């Protein structure tokens, strides 16, 4: 299993569109992916779970990937956050 802490840098936080994008990306991998914020742990492949985190700008999340393609999954997710979900044009 691998872990990584990630800070949310797009201004509106993890609202509907980024949440949808995150879930879609996570769904492409077979490994288990969890997101943890303030001791709440959700399945990254669940849209309702991710939205329930209500993760706002500046908050920090921990992503955990566990499975055969965990490296690729982590890289893909980290990319999303780094590119601010392609939102800030």
């Amino acid at each position: 299993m691998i872990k990584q802490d990630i800070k949310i840098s797009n201004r509106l936080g993890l609202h509907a569109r980024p949440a949808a994008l995150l879930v879609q990306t996570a769904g492409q991998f077979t490994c288990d992916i969890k997101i943890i914020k303030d001791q709440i742990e959700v399945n990254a492949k669940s849209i309702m779970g991710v939205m329930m985190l209500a993760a706002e700008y500046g908050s920090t999340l921990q992503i955990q990937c566990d499975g055969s393609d965990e490296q690729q999954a982590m890289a893909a997710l980290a990319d999303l956050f780094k590119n601010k979900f392609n939102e800030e044009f």
Partner: protein
Amino acid sequence: MFVIKGVPASPGVAIGPALLLPSADFAITNQYVDATQIKHEILQFTGALEKTLKDLDGFEQKLRDTLGPEYANLMSMHKMILQDPMLKDATLRKIKQEHMSAQAAIFFTLKELAASFEKIEDNFFKERRNDIFDVGKRLVNHLSGGKESFWSSIQTPSVLIARDLYPSDTLNLKEHQVIAFCTDQGGKTSHTALLAQSMRIPAVVGLYNAFRQIKNGDTVIADGENGLLILNPDRYTLARYKKIQKEIKKAESLLKTINHLPTVTADGRNVQLMVNFDPRTDSKEDRKLITDGLGLMRTEFLFMNTPKPPTEEEQYQAYLAIAKRFDMRPVIIRLADLGADKLPDFPLDEFDKDNNPFMGCRGIRLFLKNPELMHTQLRALVRTACEVPAQIKIMVPMVSSVEEMRHVRAALDKALAEFEQEGKRPLNKVSLGAMIEVPSAAIALDGMIADMDFISIGTNDLIQYLVAVDRVNPEVAHMYDPCHPAVLRTIHQIIQTAHQRRKTVSICGEIASDEKMIPMLLGLGTDILSVPPRMFLRVKNRIRNLNFEACADAAQAALLAGNSEDIRKLIEQNQDEDS
């Protein structure tokens, strides 16, 4: 008999049995099942999941074809909720461990999920609760083993009563026997109202809590003329409305005969009559109307329900289709009036939630803070003007100072220069005007008008700001008064200022199609009225039966009146003289 007052959203009268659109609180017939049934319930659930997914795919396609991609995007959120492992796991657990029926398991899972969303201190998330229940309704509809769903079960022509209608519901209206609809929510310009008008069925909206007072099968009258919903009418009322229905039918067929006649008063004063146009609800009937042009095209819908702002190309295609539809006539397109109650899904610069959104960052204020959005829209408009000979007129919403007009003018000049460099020039001049809806712009118009090519009065918001009344707040909605002396005096002042500079004034708010207000508006010197297509022939007929001199006299008298009551009396006197 019981009469509920609402807002008339689409004219006409319909009489029939009430049909309540089931709300999110669906009934559970059996909560627990026998252990031997568990397998069956699981299969029911997984089968319903598959069927619902197929449904949503179909709806997505249908929405894309009929209402455009911005509505289709609504469905992708629903699809993700449906495929959410949380929903599936929790429902299966309830069936397997607690022996719940599939129906009950879905219901309680949704309830738990919705409850956790309500805890979140953010309106956007709270609203997702509706999406969750919308998906739940679809799932449960599929449980009883392919039983006909609500819509196809409608046997007789019925008046649909709903709390609110979603885009997915409104599609069904077209295919089933709905003869009118009445909703607790919504206003005159809501999507629901526009749709009813394009389907040419009566609608009453803003009924607050009619839904709770009516039972399935109750006889109701939907009076789209006066905005009334009459529950269990007595014999006398029923007879009266049947007569009215016949009269309306007769009048409507007579109206068609005046389509090709000029819009001119009985004593020979020309008035230009245009339509407020929405391409999403265009219909065959509407295309037959002979109009003087497009008086107001709102563009917000291009920016809503989409994860990214519309590109220049997307907007250009939309404007081009519209410009072609109106060939050489004027086409007034309003820059997107985003903000307040119309917030897009994509993030905007410098935008925080407003405490007082109608006085906050909306219309041109929002565009000036997001210049890229404005630039793209202006470029798409200029590009359209380079392609077809339509008279493209760009209208700026929410203008309150001359600086704002100058900023937009500079941005338009920049867009024009960019096309000039590519060797492209508009075939007809692109003009730039303002929607006057903020009192400061109305009062100090003389200092701003040199920067405006034309003036349009947005009476809906102007009245709202003049009397400081939010029309959707039931506590004060009755104080929203188009007959307030301040309203007529302000319109008068705007028209006088514009006419001194030889500029035309159009009115595109609801009062332009209000039979009672039309004489006043003409009397004050309005050059152009712009009305919804459904009201076009009615308004034309009204104008053709008016005497302009009498209207002008009544308007002069009304300007001297000190209260709404006196102005109403003047309007009624004038009406009596006509008939």
